[in-house]
């Protein structure tokens, strides 16, 4: 009986470990020669969560990147070579991400788009730096800048910019000082927490309540009831789309009526669907891409996106589109360079994108402004 139990445990462990081991085996090795070939397609990898709770981000990012690449391919590619996009699923998991970093290095991809998850990107960054593969991420955590990799670029502002703009609007413009915070302890939530607290501190404001939840927590009764008792005027959320939605939904059920404020996730349809359209009314959002109507370029992008994928474009798709355009422009100006030369070309690229005018600094950040919008009638509109 005992030995059989032990055997069963061993088999169970084996069952759990097997997929991991297989993934690890396939990672190293492969041939390194492909990258230097000067004919055949140009291989670009897209690494993002295509499954799991963060997969909506991955799906949007894939669409944005796909749109940009298809436009270039339709126009004849770069130097007569077509661009090939390899799609990899990191499941939003840093461990899977590091395995994929080795995989794309060994399979001869010369650049990478993604990921949309800061924690995954940070985990992959050292391997990509060693393999000299430039990476344009959609992450926005200040931790990405702290990695100090010359091969890592952001296709949007960092949390510092998002939250500084938000704090400026809430405290300086609106004069709201009683602010409660609820953030998760994942890579994104932690970055938001630190950046927003810092921006508040610079204005002499201390949050009246600072609740931290875990990244896969489902019930927020305790945190939200504590917040409700402090009667805040606005509640800051630092969590991904689905969790933010659940927090707002439960807050409304608990009788909290004040508006919520946050960065990019609060501007997405997934957030609004999860929370319920009526519940998100009045939410204050700091985003570099408020709507598809802001400029001629964004209208054109949104129309092409709608025609191709039969759904409305949103910020993450726009960011990935901008990032991919920058990469392709850099590939063109550098005559399809790889490694350090390609990274230098990306850094030198000045690009007027959907999010604004990109000009990269040494930290790999190319854009330093967001705008404030509020959700009104279910739509995100610029705050007057």
């Amino acid at each position, binding site marked *: 009986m005992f030995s059989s139990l032990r055997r*069963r445990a061993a088999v169970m462990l084996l069952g759990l470990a097997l997929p991991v081991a297989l993934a690890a085996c396939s990672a190293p090795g492969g041939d390194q020669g492909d990258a230097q070939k000067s004919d055949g397609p140009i291989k670009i990898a897209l690494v993002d969560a295509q499954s*799991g*709770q963060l997969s909506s981000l991955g799906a949007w990012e894939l669409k944005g990147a796909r749109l940009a690449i298809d436009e270039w391919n339709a126009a004849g590619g770069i130097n007569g070579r077509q661009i090939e996009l390899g799609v990899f699923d990191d499941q939003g998991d840093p461990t899977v991400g590091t395995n994929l970093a080795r995989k794309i290095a060994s399979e001869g991809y010369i650049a990478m788009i993604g990921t949309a998850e800061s924690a995954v990107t940070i985990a992959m960054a050292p391997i990509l730096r060693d393999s000299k593969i430039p990476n344009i991420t959609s992450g926005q955590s200040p931790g990405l800048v702290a990695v100090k990799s010359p091969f890592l670029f952001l296709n949007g502002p960092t949390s510092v910019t998002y939250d500084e703009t938000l704090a400026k609007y809430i405290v300086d413009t609106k004069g709201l000082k009683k602010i409660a915070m609820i953030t998760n302890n994942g890579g994104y939530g932690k970055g938001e927490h630190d950046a927003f607290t810092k921006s508040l501190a610079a204005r002499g404001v201390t949050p009246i309540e600072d609740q931290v939840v875990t990244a896969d927590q489902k019930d927020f009764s*305790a*945190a939200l009831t504590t917040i409700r008792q402090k009667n805040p005027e606005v509640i800051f959320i630092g969590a991904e789309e*689905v969790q933010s939605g659940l927090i707002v939904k439960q807050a409304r*059920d608990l009788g909290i009526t004040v508006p919520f404020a946050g960065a990019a996730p609060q501007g997405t349809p997934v957030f609004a669907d*999860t929370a319920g359209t009526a519940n998100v009314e009045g939410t204050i959002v700091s985003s570099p891409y408020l709507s598809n109507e802001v400029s001629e370029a964004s209208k054109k992008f949104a129309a092409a996106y709608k025609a191709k994928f039969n759904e409305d474009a949103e910020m993450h798709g726009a960011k990935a589109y901008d990032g991919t355009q920058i990469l392709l422009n850099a590939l063109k100006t550098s005559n399809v360079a790889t490694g350090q030369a390609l990274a230098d070309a990306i850094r030198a690229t000045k690009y007027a994108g959907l999010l604004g005018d990109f000009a990269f600094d040494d930290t790999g950040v190319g854009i330093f402004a967001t705008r404030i919008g509020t959700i009104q009638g279910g739509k995100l509109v610029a705050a007057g």
Partner: protein
Amino acid sequence: MQVFLQTFIGGMSLGAIYALVALGFSLVFRTMGLVNFSHGNVVMIGAYLASTFYLSTKLPFALAMVLAVGGTGLIGVIIERVLRPLENKDFDLMLIGTIGFGIVLEALAIIIWGATGNAVPNPVASAPLQLFGLRIRTYDLVVLAIAATAAVLLVFFLQSTKRGAAMQAVAMDHEAATAVGIHVGRSNALAFMLGAGLAALAGGLVGPLLYVNPTMGGALGIKGFAAAILGGFGSIPGAIVGGFAIGVLDAFTAGHFQGYSELVTFLVFTVVIMIRPTGIFGERTVNRA
């Protein structure tokens, strides 16, 4: 005090879900001595079926739930049928078989419904009840009522019907049960079907509380499994008590330990299991290993 009670209420609603998941785990375990590792994924399939019937075909929520429970029960029967040749022969392969089924179900869900998932609006539209400054969601009450009804029906079935008694007999001694003319395979199929039905009930009910996506089964499965172990694996009252215990424990650790809540929940769980390895209701009807 208000925070305390409100936290308790929040924990009870997810606790009811964990209890339903734990019931499914325990039912299959007590009948077959098998841990069904695909159970969490079956919960997810149930959630998808219920939300699909409810959202796409615009059926009333109750009817969508009934269809989902039925459809998912059928999946349970299929799983048992495929694994049946291994029954009483190779237990380890059977365990791995359930893990495999879990992976298959998740992949199927991604193929059918896509990887992104969808939000399910609350089917009970009325505003939360207010009681001494506490707010109780009407939907939570519905969840609790359905969970309680399911538990009572299950106990009634096991103790007062012939089929239920036959299942108990198989659980105690499957060879003796065969000797007196009970069809063990059919009994096992019934256990799997009921387990899957309970999973679908949990999944369908949790849909409007959470977000339905192909990986939602993981966290629910682990918490449900922990609930079953905590209550005493195989015990029906144990699964119910364990479910609520995990739900409420989770809610309170979230309030007190914030970012470290998950850690504290499972630390408490581990300590309890070390003190009482058989769980709270430490009956062990089955030992077929």
